């Protein structure tokens, strides 16, 4: 299972399998320029494969005041 954690709200999503980061962003209706996609201590570009396990954090980058 892949766990997605939204840093701004603490909300969690679980997926059995995710092919790529762009697929994840499409599922979450996010643009690649709006968020950092973080796995461990590295950032993932939209073409990176995700697979079937692990935790990914999503950090919004747009200032909200």
């Amino acid at each position: 299972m892949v766990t997605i954690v939204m840093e701004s709200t603490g909300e969690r999503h679980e997926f059995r399998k995710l092919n790529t980061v762009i697929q994840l962003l499409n599922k979450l209706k996010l643009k690649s320029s709006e968020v950092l996609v973080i796995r461990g201590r590295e950032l993932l570009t939209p073409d990176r494969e995700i697979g079937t396990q692990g935790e990914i954090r999503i950090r919004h980058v747009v200032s909200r005041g």
Partner: protein
Amino acid sequence: MKCRRCGELAQVALPSHHTGFCAPCFENYFLRQVERGIHEHKQFTKEDKLVLAVSGGKDSLGLLLALTELGYAVTALHIDLAIPVSSENARSTVEAFCAKHSIPCHILEMAGKGLPIPEVKKKVNRPICSVCGKIKRHWFNRYAFEEGFDVLATGHNLDDEVARLFANTLRWDQAYLAGQGPVMPAEGRFVKKVKPLCRLTEYETAVWCFLKGIDHVLAACPYSGGASFTGHKKLLADLEERSPGMKMQFYGHFLATGKPAFEAVVENAPPLKECSDCGFPSSQDMCGVCRIKRLLES
């Protein structure tokens, strides 16, 4: 995706530059873009006495570290707005960052100046973001002027500049369009103001902060709900996704072509007066910040 410079696995994709970078090459790219913004617009030199307005967010703290790494001697200036929880977090984040990197830091407390933002919010019938912005701009400039700094820098990035340009264009606000840009020259009691992040998007500043391990404030200001700039940024992000590089083009062409035209139009605007209370420039007898202070005292 591979890094364009070294061929290692990329961590950052930049569609507007048709490129991607690994972490070390991105850091190199980021610093070069900051340096290029500074030189291209003649913002300041290493001889200038420089103060940077620091909120505790990613842009200002990221810029503070970048300028330090580039060899500029910077003093950080933070305004404590007295907003419960939010201001305490922001202040402690700034103080911890400056202590860690041995950067001189000065705090201006708005409560001590008779302008705590929660009280201002209760008394003023205008959007609090614009009033708060006015108060911060006044005090950043006033501190820089009174302490003899040559240049006041802010962490405004390309997205901020483009959103502001878009808002000013929607209103065809000639005075604001004439005055917008990465450099505002010194004039009277106005210190020279610069925006060294004018070539970098907030995605890029967020990446820089992540890669450099900068601990910055993530929570939004509790009073910022519904701010119009957030909506403008969403619209512009849609355009940028369809046409990568559009933001830089819009801003770059404005600086080259639009701004000079608006400057010519507003050349004969009436000169500013001196505020009867604080002595800083004002379009009226008393400046907006002193009027707010009077309102709170009444």
